[in-house]
């Protein structure tokens, strides 16, 4: 406690970001330290789990130390530690979990494990101070494309998800093939701004009537076939047009289904979360489509969309308040479900 405020330290190492943050009362980020490994993994065309694990180990102490320093607090003033225990890369997750447990034990601080996906939703509690459940959440990231109903704090009901590739994965694959490289999401977003999104007719995959699930692998194959065909015909490929048309086919379906779910469950707000939630076209389309139905769209700022410790701290705070039991035998669960 400091100045009557409950302090939570959040630790996140599920993929290629080593991150820690101190959050007051579950809502105010007093620090938000993110050490990205993206420059290292770019040389490999994607995240290499063994290398990610090694880098997390080298950086975790300083990231935690800086999160405390930036917030102007000592470890002894922390009331709760929250750490991502899944889903994610097992070797990466276990650095955060081992660090969190050692700190919890050394400093006598309760520790709760946080589901990374709950963290992405909680990023919105930091951005929008007035936001309280119930609401609908749309999570779009490298590994996830999910529509989730949030009836109360720390309760998430998954209504739909991808049956094959996540949206971010599809972006990464197509970006690689059109030579934009890794990470695909931001690069496609940038290239798409210079392109014509109606230039190539990529299909919109809605699946069965009323389904809230997604499928992007057919679209990805269609994009690869298109590129192959154009190259074989000796036609020059307009990378910006491919990026814009492909992105449109992905985000239009996502936006339509997210709005449909929000209406169906009678919610008035939809919050966006996850790395791909910072995609500018998805944000614009969500505003447009939800706006027509009188639904508010809330988005965290880009720094809170990426993996970070603040969102984990916020989710830990609400989990603890809802009665989550502190656990020094916490294990990493790479395939953790919602």
């Amino acid at each position, binding site marked *: 406690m400091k100045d009557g405020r409950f302090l939570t330290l959040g630790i996140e190492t599920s993929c290629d970001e080593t991150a820690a943050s101190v959050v007051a009362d579950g809502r105010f980020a007093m620090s938000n330290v993110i050490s990205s490994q993206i420059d290292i993994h770019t040389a490999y065309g994607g995240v290499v789990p063994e290398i990610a*694990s090694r880098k997390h180990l080298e950086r975790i102490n300083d990231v935690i130390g800086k999160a405390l320093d930036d917030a102007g607090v000592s470890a002894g003033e922390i009331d709760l530690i929250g750490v991502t225990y899944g889903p994610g890369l*097992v070797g990466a997750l276990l650095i955060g979990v081992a660090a969190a447990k050692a700190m919890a034990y050394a400093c006598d601080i309760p520790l709760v494990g946080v589901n990374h996906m709950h963290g992405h939703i909680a990023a919105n509690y930091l951005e929008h101070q007035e936001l309280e459940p119930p609401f609908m959440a749309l999570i779009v990231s490298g590994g996830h494309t999910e529509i989730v109903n949030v009836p109360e704090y720390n309760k998430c009901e998954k209504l739909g998800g991808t049956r094959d590739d996540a949206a971010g994965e599809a972006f990464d694959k197509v970006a690689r093939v059109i030579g934009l490289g890794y990470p695909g999401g931001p690069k496609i977003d940038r290239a798409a701004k210079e392109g014509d999104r109606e230039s190539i007719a990529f299909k919109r995959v809605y699946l069965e009537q009323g389904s809230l699930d997604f499928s992007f692998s057919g679209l990805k194959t269609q994009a690869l076939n298109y590129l192959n065909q154009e190259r074989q015909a000796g036609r020059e490929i307009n990378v910006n047009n491919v990026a814009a048309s492909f992105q449109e086919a992905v985000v239009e379906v996502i936006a339509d289904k997210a709005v449909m779910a929000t209406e169906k469950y009678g919610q008035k707000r939809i919050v966006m979360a996850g790395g791909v939630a910072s995609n500018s076209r998805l944000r614009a389309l969500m505003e447009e489509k939800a706006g027509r139905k009188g639904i508010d769209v809330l988005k965290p700022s880009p720094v809170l969309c990426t993996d970070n410790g603040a969102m984990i701290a916020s989710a830990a705070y609400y989990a603890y308040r809802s009665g989550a039991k502190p656990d020094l035998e916490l294990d990493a669960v790479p395939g953790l479900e919602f």
Partner: protein
Amino acid sequence: MKILAIETTGKYGSASVIDETGRIFSAASSEEMNHLRGMITLIDEALREAGITKDELTHAAASVGPGSFTGIRIGVTTVRIMSQMLDIPCIAVSTLGAMAERALGRAISSGALYVVPVINARRHQTYAGVYEAVFTADGSRQSAIPVMEEKQYMIEELLEELKQKMAEHSGAAAFFTGDGIDAYGDIIKDIMPEESYVFAEEDLRYQHAESVARIALRKAAAGNILTYSELMPEYMRLAEAEQRLRAGTLSDRIRKPVQI
């Protein structure tokens, strides 16, 4: 002096607390590869056995490898954070050195001059070292001095080099320890001359924090300590992708993304 030592590089995790008199209190897991879940419980048990609190600890030591990459990381991360939060120095202990230390007494009583810890790294590969049992300068006790580099060896290569080394002392025997015996026992029997080797019994064949603690105590007394940032894993092997990147054999698909 009160030193916490932890060992997570093999199948079974353990934690020990040693004081300046050399008294050791330990806790060990009976569950395989339960390091992440069980480590704090083991540390807590060892401290309780020793009758001290974590705030009385003066040093934290880790068995830094080689061994299971995951295990190494759990141990090193735990010790680094304990060191940072309790504001105490770290001590790095070689896993192979600790295994030699553990086997030393039995090696000497079985008449062996060399102690050879061998960790199975699969496909005929090992992490290994060769130690000689010698008396310390004051003659008070015997210690294991490394006489061949600790590194990655093919099992056959290790044994050939060992035989050359042993030729320096006719009649010398080698005391093998570690899970390399389980994986390569038959190869060792094939290559080593009869009666030139002994296999460690299973009760001391595998890594244990006790020997990590004993080495840590000597290092602490000698002022051989580190800050938490200096405590690094000893993987003895690059990540596979990094090996390929350096060798220029990383997939073309990644290096030349435009081609399909």
